[in-house]
Every structure is written in C-alpha cells, then in structure tokens.
C-alpha cells in the first residue's frame, strides 16, 4: 500500500444573476414611530444570510445603526415581488433594491430633520450612530427617534422609500447565442492537495487553498461561510455523491437515505485557507458580486487534477469513487 500525494489547480468565473426571463426584485422601507426602519421584502433567506446583508445595506444607506433595521420578508401579502433566491442574485438584486428604497426614505428623513432643526437638508449628515447632524456643527443634531416622531405626529409625513432592481430581459440570438445574461462575474482559483490510497482507491482531500474575487465583501464572516461551505459541497460532489451510482448504464441502486448517500463528515473535510480580493462591480450594492453558488465549482476539477498528479489516473466522470480510482490504476498497470 502506498499513499500518493498530488496537487491540482482550477480557476473559474461565475455570473451574478440571470436575466433570461427578466430578473427583478423590489423593496419597501418605512419608518416606525420611534425610528425603527422596516425593510419589507418577499425574498427568501436560504440560510446564506440575505436578511443580514440587506439589513447592512439599509443601515449603511440610511446612516443609522443596524439595531434600528427590521427585515420583514417572505410573506406575499406584505412584501413586494422578488423573483426568488437563486442564480447568485440575492445580495446583488435585493441589495440594490434595498439601497434604492433606503435612499428615498433617507431623503425624507433628512428633510424632516432639516425642518425640525430649521436648517437646509443639504447641510445634514449621518454617521451611523442614530443622529442626524449639521455638517461641521456636530452639536446641532437630532436623533432618528425624534425625527420619526415628528414625521408621524407633527409634520404628517411618511418616511418611506421604494426600490426595485431590474436588469432588462436578454433574448439570446438563436443563430449565434449572442446575449447579455448576467450583471457581473466573480472569480476563483482553488488549489487542492489530495492523498490517494493505491490499495483501496480512497481519495482524501487534505487541504484546499482558495482565492476569491467577489467585488466587495459586505460581511466578511458570511463570505468565509460561503467560501468554505461551498468548498465542502464541492469536495462532496467530487468524491462522494450520486443519486444514480451506475448512471447511465443502470437506474438501480439509488440511495434513499443518508446511510447510503454519502457526504464528508468532519473527518473527511479538508483544511481550508482562503484569501479574498475585491474588485467592486459598478452595478453591485457597494460593489458586491454574487458568490452564493460558485464556491462549490473550482474544488471539483482541482481535486480531479490533484488525483492525476498523485497517481496518474485521469478521472473524467464524477464522482471520483474508490472503484474508479482502482480501475484507473489497473488500466495503467495493464498499459505498462
């Protein structure tokens, strides 16, 4: 038995959004009596953190603390339309819609504040602490709860805003495939280090090194969660998963539970080291691109290439099972 080691590379890009059917999302923002700001959406947070990121976009744009932002979403009676959470579109589309709505609400907020302070709205600024202050005269300020109360009970104004992001539908040219289907591209390069057991055929992914360019990291911990969680999925796709293990020859032996459908546990999960680069997208919320999906992609070919580097077996069919490694090693011996 020999444990063979190899290193493989892969570099990829991935589109943000997919406007082959029109791809809109909307947001509404309004202030409550004491200066809470409700962001109303119908978007679905799949666990990737959409609600958190759009709250950050709203707080940044309004210039108020995060604690003052309430996200109310995924109810079709109360939230305006969202196309859905897929195509790496959530942060980009919903983020942009929220920023647009928050800008409109901010304008009203500053005007109400200006009327209370008897100054020009153009002379006001926010610093994220909850106060609106006169530029260069920080003592002349008013808190957002007082602004909201004044709007509700004194000035008779709704501090509110509407936002939508729509990239117009692109129809591919049937003859050539000419189209404009997405908003921007994120980028990644993954280096995989594997160990191949030439007796059992088992591939162990030891380490993954990832570099991602994602426009702007709006929330660095959630970027790490996407990069590392997605890479785990890529490892799983590469060496474990299939609903039809003998595809296409046989439709039999399909797994029906997690004792038959294997995925990496903590012991099979590689160490990961990742670095993030930022090249802000001109059309992204604060420059962000979508990376929801792509993080599973580069690890797969990087692992395939590392297996070849380790043992000379080129696996061109996913997943890379012990059986396929052993058959490849046999073929190499037969050829030698």
């Amino acid at each position: 038995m020999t444990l063979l080691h190899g290193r493989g590379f892969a570099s990829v890009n991935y589109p943000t959004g997919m406007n082959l059917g029109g791809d809109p999302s909307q947001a509404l923002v309004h202030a409550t009596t004491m200066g809470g700001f409700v962001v109303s959406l119908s978007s679905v947070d799949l666990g990737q953190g959409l609600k958190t990121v759009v709250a950050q976009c709203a707080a940044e744009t309004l210039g108020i603390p995060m604690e003052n932002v309430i996200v109310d979403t995924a109810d079709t009676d109360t939230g305006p339309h969202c196309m859905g959470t897929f195509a790496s579109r959530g942060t980009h589309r919903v983020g942009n819609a929220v920023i647009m709505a928050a800008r409109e609400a901010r304008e009203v907020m500053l005007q109400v504040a200006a009327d209370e302070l008897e100054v020009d709205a153009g002379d006001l600024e926010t610093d994220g602490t909850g106060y609106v202050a006169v530029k260069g005269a920080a003592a002349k300020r008013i808190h957002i709860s007082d602004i909201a109360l004044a709007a509700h009970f004194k000035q008779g104004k709704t501090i509110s805003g509407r936002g939508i992001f729509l990239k117009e539908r692109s129809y591919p040219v049937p003859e050539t495939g000419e189209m404009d289907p997405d908003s921007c591209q994120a980028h990644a390069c993954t280096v995989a280090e594997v160990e191949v057991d030439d007796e059992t055929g088992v591939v162990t992914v030891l380490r993954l090194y990832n570099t991602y360019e994602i426009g702007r990291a709006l929330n660095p911990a959630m970027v790490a969660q996407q990069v590392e969680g997605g890479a785990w999925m890529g490892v799983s796709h590469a060496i474990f998963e299939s609903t039809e293990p003998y595809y296409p020859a046989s439709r039999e032996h399909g797994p029906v539970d997690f004792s038959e459908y294997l995925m990496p546990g903590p012991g099979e999960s590689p160490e990961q080291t990742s670095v993030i680069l930022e090249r802000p997208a001109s059309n992204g919320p604060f420059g962000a691109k979508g990376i929801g999906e792509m993080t599973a992609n580069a690890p797969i070919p990087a692992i395939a290439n590392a297996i070849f580097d380790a043992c000379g077996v080129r696996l061109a069919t996913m997943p890379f099972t012990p059986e396929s490694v052993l058959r490849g090693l046999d073929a190499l011996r037969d050829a030698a």
Partner: protein
Amino acid sequence: MPRVNPIDSSFFKDERGPGDFTVIGKTVPRSDALGHVTGRTQFFEDRTFPDLAHLKIHRSPHHHALIDSVDTSEALRVPGVLRVLTHEDVPANWYGVLRLIGIGPDDEVVLAEDRVIYRGEPIVAVVADSEAAALEGASKVKVSYTVLPAVLDVEEAMSPDAPVIKKAGTNYFVYEGHHARRIRFGDVEAGFAQADHVFEWRYSSAPIEHAPTETTGCIVEPKPDGRLLIHSNTQAAFFTLDNTALIINRAPTDLQVKGGTVGGGFGGKVDVMVEPLACIAATLTNRPVKFVYTREEEMQVSSPRAAERIYIKDGVMNDGRIVARKIMLYVDAGAYARHSPYGATKAAAHLPGPYTIPNVYADCHCVYTNRTPSSAMRGFGVTIADFAIESQMDRVARALGMDPLQFRLVNAYRDGDMKAHRKEASGTALIEVIQRAAALVGHDLPAEYQAMSSSTPRGAIA
C-alpha cells in the same frame, strides 16, 4: 470570534476606494443564528394544527408505460383516508414552471393521465387523517400498465431511431428552431486547421441530490375568508404563488405564501412540486393539509442536479494559446423540462470558460430521457462544465509540457475581450486570483506572469 478570510487589499487598490463605511464590510452576526443554535427557529413543519391532514403519493414503478386503468377503491376503504386525487381533480393539470417568463411548451402533468414517463412519476394523491393512513392508502392504489421501451441515455435519446417520449415530438428542447442552444463565434474549423495540436476528451457526471436537511414541503391552511395560506419552504415565494394559482385555477389573490425559513435550498426548492396538490386537497377537505417529501422521495423523485456529458475539442498553439474550442454538451433533463432549458442556456453563456478563445462553437442540448426530471441546482449549468473545462485545461497544459497556471494565465480573459456570446468582458479578475493562489501555495510564477493584469489590454504583453 467568527472565522474570517483575510482581504488582500493590495489588489485593485484604486478601484476599492477608501471603504469608509459604517456597517458594510463589517462582520455583523447573522440575524437567524440565535434561533438556529437554540432550536427556536420555526420551520414550516413546526406549525401544528389539531385537524391537520396528510397527503402522500402513489408513484409509477416504471420508467415508461401506458396507464391502462387506475383503481382507488381499496385506497378509499383504508380507515382515515379522506380523499383520493387524480388528474381529474387538478384544474390545469398540464404546466411548466417557466411559463411565467414565457418559456414553453407546458410539458409536465401534476398527476399522470394516460401514461408515465419516469419511475416515480406521481399518479394518485391520497389525503388522510394521519401520515400512516395516507401512506397505506397510497400503497393500496392499483394501477395497471402496458410497459413501453425506455430511453435512458442522452445521446441515444437524440438519435433518430430512439422512441419519442415527449408529446411535443422531440426528445430535446427546441431553441427557436434549433436542437440546442448554440454558440457560434469565429470559425472553429479554421482554428483547428491553424492549430499546432488538437486535443479532444469526454467528461461526464451522474445526478446529484441537493441533500437539504429539511425536505421539500408545505402546509396549506384554509382561512375563514376562503383564502389559502401556504406555509412553504420555497426559495421563491411569488414564483410558487403564481405557478400554483395557474395550476389550481384560482385568483392569485386567493393565495398567500409565507416562508423564508428554509432548511437548505441549493436550487431544490424552486420547482413548485408540493403546493398545488396541497392547495387542492385543502380546498376539497376544508382542512389544513401537509405535503412533505420523505427522504426517499427527496433523493430519488425530487429533481437532482442533471447528469451531463461534455465533449471538448481544443486547437492549441505551441506557445499555449488556445485558438479554437468546440463543445458538445448534453444535459440529461430527465422526463420534464422544469428549469433545464434555462440551465442549458446558462451553460452556453458560460462557455468556453473564463478564457479568451477566438473561435468557439458550442451546442448545449437539453435532452429528455425517462429519468427523474432534473432541474436547478447550485451552479446551474456551470458546475459540471467547470469540471470539464478545468480538467481539459490541466490535460492540455500537461500535453504541452506547460505549467498549469501559466497556461491558464496565457489564455485568461481580460477587460475589453469579447466573450463567445458577444458580451464585452469587464471587471475581470481571473489573472489576479490565479496569481494570488500561486502565492498562497508557494507556486513560483515567472516575472512576466506576475506582471500580468486583467485591466491591461490583451496584446500589451507579448
């Protein structure tokens, strides 16, 4: 402390700006984290109703068969069974989820009519007081079949001799008169003729499950005003609402979808599979109805990531420049279209990968077979293509005796390059992620490769 990957601010310094934000770029805790770790997050299934009814499905055991007869009498005699539903109970049984964006034809049935075209296709729904009674009722449905030959291979399905399994008359989706979504850019044959080397290899994959912790499901609650409240784990609330309204032939304003807490999506919860039948059952019984996939249904019947087969032929010069790339891509859509025609177009737009190649030819086929319909999954149209492309890049580099990263850098796309789908590249950063990854693992790159930049026009470096 949350785990955070470092941001290397030495790249794209001028474009990143001052970054003087108050909360953008900061690690703020996830809003759902506390609920998840304390077990207090409410998922759709955590709602309880005293009169909740359960819906289970009787499914086809055959890949392809005519239905001669359906007998539900024994199922109806099972204690606790309230109703059985057949296609006659579905107001608009033929549908396609992409009709909302004008993509047709409507090629799928909610419940089978005169035939089944995949193993696991739903034929009868049984609604009962308990899950056990619904399962027993579903097992007591009797269907007799005339079994037909099945098509289970994408290239066989495309051949003129294959049995046609689809009502529309072809075993593939028709893209504006073409049998595939095409990319035609430059002259690929001239490129091969000019190349020093030509390499061609085949890549393939098997279907993959989304494997969410929480299976696809919903509870539909009839409200006192006659509306239906749908508690769902859909990834797209209005997409589900609009498609459901069309299938059950109710005004969209009769329906309300509440969701937003999903135990894993990954593209597996955009197909609108459970809500229409649960709505029909709730209406007919006037009780809240739960329809949730078992783990077996989630793994074998709900749509997987498509298996793909991809042939890549490259024409390459001795210096490493790829001058022609031809790709034949086959997506195994299974029995029904669902989102697959869209995914094959997304694949086409992604080809030939993040490289600038002057001559590109691609046919991306969305092929129907007698398998579980595949549909959207994380990296839709791209994940398997990337496996093929990046394996191909490694093999060509080795065949040329070139460093694999230098080979990629020579061909990496840059700002201003024209992509094969005739969109000018901008905001590119492939070169930089390769350079940074090389540094991360101590893989030496010669100075001229380290000096490359995505914003320097191609040609400026020899």
